[in-house]
């Protein structure tokens, strides 16, 4: 029983990371019907920029904790900037040309470019991210959790709640919701939809960068950390439904817990299988995702 609880707890912290990245996918899909396939690389860049900033601040005799806190706004700003660049370079020309899948290729290409840039700047080895909290695990009735893993879960929830509140209670947030519902009507009502789309990309990359610095202390930081996470988060986004914020969280938790349970009870070699099986099942039974709404095409 204790093993089961330990596995579930491990799975939750892994799943929340998938959820936060998938949340980023959902943000851009809602407003522009496009996805940033370089989302994993956005996470990786956020983590590496965060690492450099933290090392710089620690070099100036700041404690691990305060270096981390001061680094957060820097990384968030960087994420927003990176998202805007992706949108401006890759997505806007494709939307303008009414290309069906041009944005797929361009976001993938930008992802590859960012990965190579990162490899050249930070090298290809795995790096250690200084943890803001002590690394010793806490024990809750025999279940061991690292303090940083708790921060991961809290940070992910805080981010998603913040975006949800923004959408509901600020005028700009309402503009975003309007653009998601019907882009043409929103444009006719005077909302600058192009700027909204840029903003949603910026927000999406910002959440990926934030996820990057959340997950970096508990895992390996390096130029290749984004690829697998981005892919799994994409599966989570599909499973949870691309139109539901809550769906991606649930989807992430489902995938994270299934992975760790499979790894233990079936075989560690098959750890990646259940997530993809789940993806296939969801796509064949409920293609819009577990919590998504089926698109109603108006004539």
């Amino acid at each position, binding site marked *: 029983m204790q093993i089961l609880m330990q596995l579930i707890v491990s799975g939750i912290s892994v799943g929340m990371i998938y959820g936060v990245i998938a949340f980023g996918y959902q943000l851009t899909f809602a407003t522009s019907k496009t996805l940033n396939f370089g989302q994993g690389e956005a996470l990786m860049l956020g983590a590496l920029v965060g690492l450099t900033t933290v090392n710089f601040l620690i070099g100036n005799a700041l404690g691990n904790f305060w270096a981390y806190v001061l680094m957060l706004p820097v990384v968030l700003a960087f994420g927003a900037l990176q998202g805007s660049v992706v949108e401006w370079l890759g997505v806007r020309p494709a939307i303008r040309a009414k290309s069906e899948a041009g944005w797929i290729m361009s976001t993938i290409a930008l992802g590859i470019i960012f990965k190579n840039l990162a490899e050249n700047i930070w090298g290809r*080895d*795995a*790096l250690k991210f200084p943890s803001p909290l002590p690394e010793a695990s806490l024990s809750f009735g025999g279940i061991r959790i690292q303090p940083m893993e708790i921060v991961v879960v809290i940070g992910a929830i805080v981010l998603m709640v913040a975006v949800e509140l923004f959408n509901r209670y600020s005028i700009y947030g309402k503009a975003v919701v309007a653009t998601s519902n019907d882009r043409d009507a929103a444009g006719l009502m005077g909302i600058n939809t192009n700027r909204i789309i840029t903003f949603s990309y910026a927000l999406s990359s910002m959440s990926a960068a934030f996820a990057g610095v959340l997950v970096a202390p508990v895992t390996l930081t390096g130029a*290749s950390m984004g690829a697998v996470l981005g892919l799994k988060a994409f599966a989570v986004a599909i499973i949870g439904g691309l139109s539901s914020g809550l769906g991606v969280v649930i989807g992430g938790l489902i995938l994270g817990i299934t992975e760790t349970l499979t*790894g233990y009870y079936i075989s560690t070699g098959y750890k990646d299988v259940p997530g993809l099986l789940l993806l296939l099942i969801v796509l064949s039974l409920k293609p819009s995702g577990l919590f998504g709404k089926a698109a109603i095409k108006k004539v």
Partner: protein
Amino acid sequence: MKMKMVWLLAATMITAPVMAADPIKIGVSGPFTGGSASMGVSMRDGVKLAASEINAAGGVLGRPIELVERDDEAKNELGVQIAQELINKENVVATVGYINTGVALASQRFYQEAEIPVFNNVATGSVVTKQFAGPDYKANYIFRNAANDTIQSAMIAEEAVKRQGFKKPAILADATNYGQLGKTDLTNALQKFNIAPVATEKFNIGDTDMTAQLLRAKEAGADVILTYAIGPELAQIANGMAKLGWKVPMIGSWTLSMATFIDTAGPNGDGAMMPQTFIQQPTTPKRKAFIEAYQKAYNVDRMPSPVSAAQGYDSIYLLAAAITQAKSTEGRAIREALENLNTKVEGVVTTYDHPFTATDHEAVSDNIPVFGLVKGGRVGPAHPEDIVGDQALRIKPKA
């Protein structure tokens, strides 16, 4: 038209002898990027150091060595491409390298078919030198100067079971050829002591969460973890154990000496033990000179992978000695010279005295490696009594 061709041919033949001082091309194939990069880069740096020393002393047969380096990224398919390029386009006389067993196994057959010698200076999979061994093949063009996995797994088993008295080992190996072949070697080695592993777990390159594997080992009651993997994943095993609050000793293959393991695991990596052909300590004059030359040439204090650097360095010296003895750069002649090396080659790992025969292509025997121990960010000898005095230089017994 035909006359023109004859004149052209004659002209080329007259000018050919003039190109006698052209360089001897030696291929260097290894992963200079990716998870195995610290081994590949160290190997290449050791190779470059040896080549520059030999060239400064006049080269081989009066000709300078020219290294043709190619990054195989630890990917089998790239290794194959590079082998074909080096043989057909660059016309190398021999190739040194191969860190990853899988890449070596996939690529070597091109050299074997072209009758060009391959010097494995780091790859440890036991079957690497046996791929083209007799009696099926008339001549074997694959040589090695690293401690192969048969030797390492026997050492690991002996250290864990006999010397330290553990009875319930768990094997954690990665999913590559190296990891899985090593796991088989380890299981066989343990069987000789009548011990079976209580848990055998697998993980992929790039995996960061080892909770499931470690929990299964813990539930099975393991008292020692035996590893066969490379740096970053090994560090996650060490970190994972600290996270679960369950720390048992880690004994594994030589890759536990990689800088990526030591740095990423931090204090969690202390106490890990592994067989080493070379520990970065000036225990003999040759080793002292090598360490100092390496540190000066590459501006480092701690070598990222001392074993790779030392074996890379030795492989060039062995090859140079063979080419000098053969007085030719023809593949067949080099192979025969290697199998009947008359001169003693003083290397960093050991002094090579007739290291190869027609049937034995392994320069490192089981008495050469000693156990290293990770402590405070560096690798030191685990049992200092192993390398004191005369024992510092261990030589392969004559056949």
